[in-house]
């Protein structure tokens, strides 16, 4: 493999290509010699021009020219005419190289280099770009260069927007033009530039994209732009508080360890050994800066002056939708306390995109501290019996799922109108797959904006039907639709207290704990958790779940049934590590251990570095087992489980059971068997 030319079949071709190769080789070697000896004479530079005209890919030659230009400039004492002629020559060489191959990275970069030296004529550059973009309207080098020139010369974004108009009118399939349009508009909308107020501008953009979509519904460009527009319509920059536990106006009952003394209260009861209870704030987007200075708490509960707020997310991230702190109480002080929370009291809560939580929000709840009976026996939790139907007439539920700071603050009218008109528009396109999908997304967005109880939730049936149709029509993307179907189902279920109460039970075995039963619903994804923060017992058995993502917000959860799902590994249970109250976990009859996980890569990089486990007892005593079951180890050691069911998975067996006992020494029940001592 030494780059010798292949023998061509005809003699004249052979001669021609041989001559070509000889010429290139000799040019190349002369050029290399010049470069090596730092020769920057006119002839030497001319030689590199020739080389680049034949082969624009020769980046060494581009770099040589940069050195040559610097050398020339140092010799001519900044005579403006000479300087200009030197740079003009560079631009000319680039242009002819681009004619040879307009995808040459080196040539485009050389041009940028010349321009960044302060030598440019915007008119000329734009004319050149027009020429290239006419030849290939999708050339991303040209589009990138265009953005570079615009920024360098401070050309107005409005003028550039006009250019995308022209390109789109010329060919609406040109996604590069749509892309540039979205970049420009994002910037103009963010500045609230004249004529670019979202409520005025976005409806016009919908009209524009309709003309593309309705001309050719099979073209993706318009659909992507439509998705972006929908995002702009829904996207409220200011972060808002979506829900909390305890919620506004609610009453909770607190007690110490064990069971409550003979109470069958209708209120939410929370038992804790540590004498504290969680306070959860759920925001509509990830925020940072939740602290005892941005959230003030006014109550007679003692010892809660310097609360530590934690984001519920990956360990290094300081932003999250969910924030939690723990309020202390003294279980012997039988009393009723009012607790007043003020969120955003002082500025500092900021969304990950940099927008401030603007409107302070206040809510109040009542906490009863009750007497407790110590040392209830550690009975096994059964998922098959002991459940009473929830009293649907109970008014408690309303206060449990009252949502807090919603639409009131925000200008929703134009957004609702825009979505309404889109829904109407896409009703007629709904026989195509993308038409159905768009309609389903629009309807979901519309439902999220409804605050009037009378019309709330009326369109969920339609959404579910659309996703059912899509699953049947487009089997290759079945799982995607399935997930969306699950999300819509859960939104529907939580949209009213009536529909939610159908799934609520009380579990006698544990002090009438509120149990939400969502079994046998073929759910593949979890959603609407912000409305389920009060749930302490959750039955998700016999579904199609792959992971527990989302459950981390349910800080009160103490019993969870995930049996008969599609969990493939312990790392899919990662989010449970944040649920510190969890005592009972059933993951029996899943696929854990069926698919081997490539552990080698984890031993060399995160998340499980050797130093992390080699220091604790299990890691020291049993490095082999930890290596083998690293994903189980990583999750289980952070939980305080009393009861675990793991049977019916590939991973289960004697070896794994003994490993579990080492990692979770406090475990009482394993696979239905009471453990010794």
């Amino acid at each position: 493999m030494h780059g010798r030319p292949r023998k061509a079949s005809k003699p004249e071709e052979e001669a021609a290509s041989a001559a070509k190769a000889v010429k290139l080789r000799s040019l190349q070697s002369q050029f290399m010699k010049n470069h090596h000896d730092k020769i920057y004479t006119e002839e030497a530079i001319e030689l590199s021009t020739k080389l680049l005209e034949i082969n624009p890919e020769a980046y060494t030659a581009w770099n040589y020219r940069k050195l040559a230009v610097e050398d020339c400039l140092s010799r001519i004492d900044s005579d403006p005419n000479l300087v200009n002629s030197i740079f003009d020559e560079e631009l000319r060489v680039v242009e002819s190289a681009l004619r040879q191959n307009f995808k040459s990275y080196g040539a485009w970069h050389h041009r940028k280099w010349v321009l960044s030296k302060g030598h440019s004529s915007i008119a000329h550059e734009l004319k050149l770009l027009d020429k290239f973009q006419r030849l290939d309207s999708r050339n991303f080098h040209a589009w990138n260069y265009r953005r570079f020139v615009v920024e360098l010369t401070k050309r107005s974004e409005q003028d550039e927007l006009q250019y995308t108009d022209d390109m789109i009118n010329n060919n609406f399939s040109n996604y590069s033009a749509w892309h540039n349009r979205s970049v420009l508009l994002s910037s103009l909308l963010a500045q609230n530039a004249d004529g670019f107020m979202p409520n005025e501008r976005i409806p016009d953009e919908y009209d524009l994209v309709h003309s593309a979509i309705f001309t050719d519904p099979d073209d993706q460009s318009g659909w992507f732009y439509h998705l972006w527009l929908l995002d702009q319509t829904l996207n409220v920059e200011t972060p808002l508080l979506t829900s909390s536990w305890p919620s506004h106006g609610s009453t909770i009952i607190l007690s110490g360890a064990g069971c409550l003394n003979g109470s069958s209260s209708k209120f939410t009861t929370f038992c804790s050994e540590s004498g504290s209870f969680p306070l959860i704030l759920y925001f509509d987007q990830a925020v940072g800066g939740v602290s005892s200075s941005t959230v003030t708490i006014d109550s007679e509960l003692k010892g809660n002056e310097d609360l530590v707020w934690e984001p519920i997310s990956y360990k290094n991230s300081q932003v999250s939708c969910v924030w939690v702190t723990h309020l202390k109480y003294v279980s012997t002080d039988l009393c009723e306390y009012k607790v007043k929370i003020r969120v955003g009291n002082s500025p500092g809560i900021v969304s990950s995109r940099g927008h401030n939580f603007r409107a302070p929000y206040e809510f109040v709840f009542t906490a009863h501290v009750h007497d407790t009976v110590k040392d209830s026996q550690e009975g096994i939790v059964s998922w098959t019996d002991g459940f009473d139907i929830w009293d649907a007439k109970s008014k408690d539920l309303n206060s449990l799922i009252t949502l807090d700071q919603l639409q009131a603050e925000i200008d929703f009218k134009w957004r609702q109108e825009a979505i309404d008109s889109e829904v109407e528009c896409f009703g007629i396109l709904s026989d195509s797959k993308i038409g159905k999908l768009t309609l389903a997304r629009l309807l979901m967005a519309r439902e999220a904006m409804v605050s009037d109880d009378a019309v709330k939730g009326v369109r969920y049936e339609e959404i579910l039907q659309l996703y059912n149709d899509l699953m049947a029509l487009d089997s290759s993307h079945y799982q995607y639709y399935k997930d969306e179907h699950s999300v819509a189902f859960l939104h529907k279920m939580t949209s009213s207290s009536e529909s939610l109460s159908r799934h609520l039970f009380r579990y006698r075995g544990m002090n009438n704990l509120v149990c939400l039963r969502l079994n046998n619903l073929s759910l593949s994804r979890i959603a609407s958790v912000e409305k389920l923060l009060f749930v302490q017992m959750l039955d998700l058995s016999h579904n199609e779940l792959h992971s527990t993502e989302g459950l981390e917000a349910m800080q009160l959860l103490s019993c969870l049934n995930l049996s008969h799902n599609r969990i493939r590994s312990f790392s899919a249970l990662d989010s449970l590590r944040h649920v510190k109250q969890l005592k009972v976990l059933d993951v029996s009859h899943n696929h854990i251990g069926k698919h081997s996980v490539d552990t080698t890569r984890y031993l060399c990089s995160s998340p499980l570095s050797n130093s992390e486990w080699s220091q604790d007892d299990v890691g020291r005593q049993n490095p082999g087992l930890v290596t083998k079951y690293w994903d189980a180890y990583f999750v289980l050691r952070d939980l305080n489980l009393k009861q675990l069911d793991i049977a019916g998975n590939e991973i289960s067996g004697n070896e794994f059971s003994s490993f579990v006992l080492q990692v979770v020494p406090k475990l009482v029940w394993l696979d239905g068997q009471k453990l010794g001592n």
Partner: protein
Amino acid sequence: MSETAVSIDSDRSKSEEEDEEEYSPPVQSSPSANFEKDRHLMYLEMMYELLPYHYQSQEINRLTLAHFIISGLHFLGARDRVDKDVVAKWVLSFQAFPTNRVSLKDGEFYGFFGSRSSQFPIDENGDLKHNGSHLASTYCALAILKVIGHDLSTIDSKSLLISMINLQQDDGSFMPIHIGGETDLRFVYCAAAICYMLDSWSGMDKESAKNYILNCQSYDGGFGLIPGSESHGGATYCAIASLRLMGYIGVDLLSNDSSSSIIDPSLLLNWCLQRQANDGGFQGRTNKPSDTCYAFWIGAVLKLIGGDALIDKMALRKFLMSCQSKYGGFSKFPGQLPDLYHSYYGYTAFSLLEEQGLSPLCPELGLPLLAAPGI
């Protein structure tokens, strides 16, 4: 193709394409329905012996072409067809070294040259006058060494890693060569893969590279080569594979804790899936024709985020078959002559599809799956 292995758009020089049109055979009436392993082997062995003149403008990328051939042979289960020692010696002969410790601080990068023509001799003072070490060539050199089973811990990588930092920019991106050059995601990926293969992250500031990558995600879910640019299959691969190599995203991102993930995986999934066109192949950008290499660039991203089950594999296979040359190798578009770049990414794509008899793929390195470093 530009100067890199991760060159995205397979942009070959125009003269080359003209040549191809000239010799273009009639479109095969019925492309083979099978992966013709023996023909591919023949094709690669032929290329190993002698490169056709079409590649002369690629002289500068000699190591890259060698990587496609040698790693390609490994995918076909024929790594024994190359002489390991000869290849290792040849590859190592391209490595650049500083003349002394002091010059490590001179801002240059001491990696691998792309070819002999960019390799200058040391002058009479013992100085390396023109150091053309390039990130992409360095990635390819290490890839070849890794694939042939050369122990990477034996090579002198200290100066390589220390000097690579010189290429990283304030925004976290990398230039490919110390003299200067375009900075974009391709070279962030090269740097990450180099650190990963050498099992040392001393060559880069991971955190700032991560931030650069995140700045490249577009509103549609894909990644552009530079911040603000249009989503592109190759750039998206560079972004996701780099994040994986650096340990910022884990396996099966989609079914894990994606709400707190640093990127938006469901939007990315959506974008990737929409790149599978009606003909079954993958396109690099919206409304572009399907192209063999994106079966790998996008397919590997889907694999990395745990969304590969959603690929229409039958349709993809059918498209790739229409790009399989009867002489062995794969072409960019159906019915054209094959080239090394598209052949290699054809093999990686078939490995992703778990074709029998092909080595399994390590998607984040774009190489056959081998033992991880340090094991």
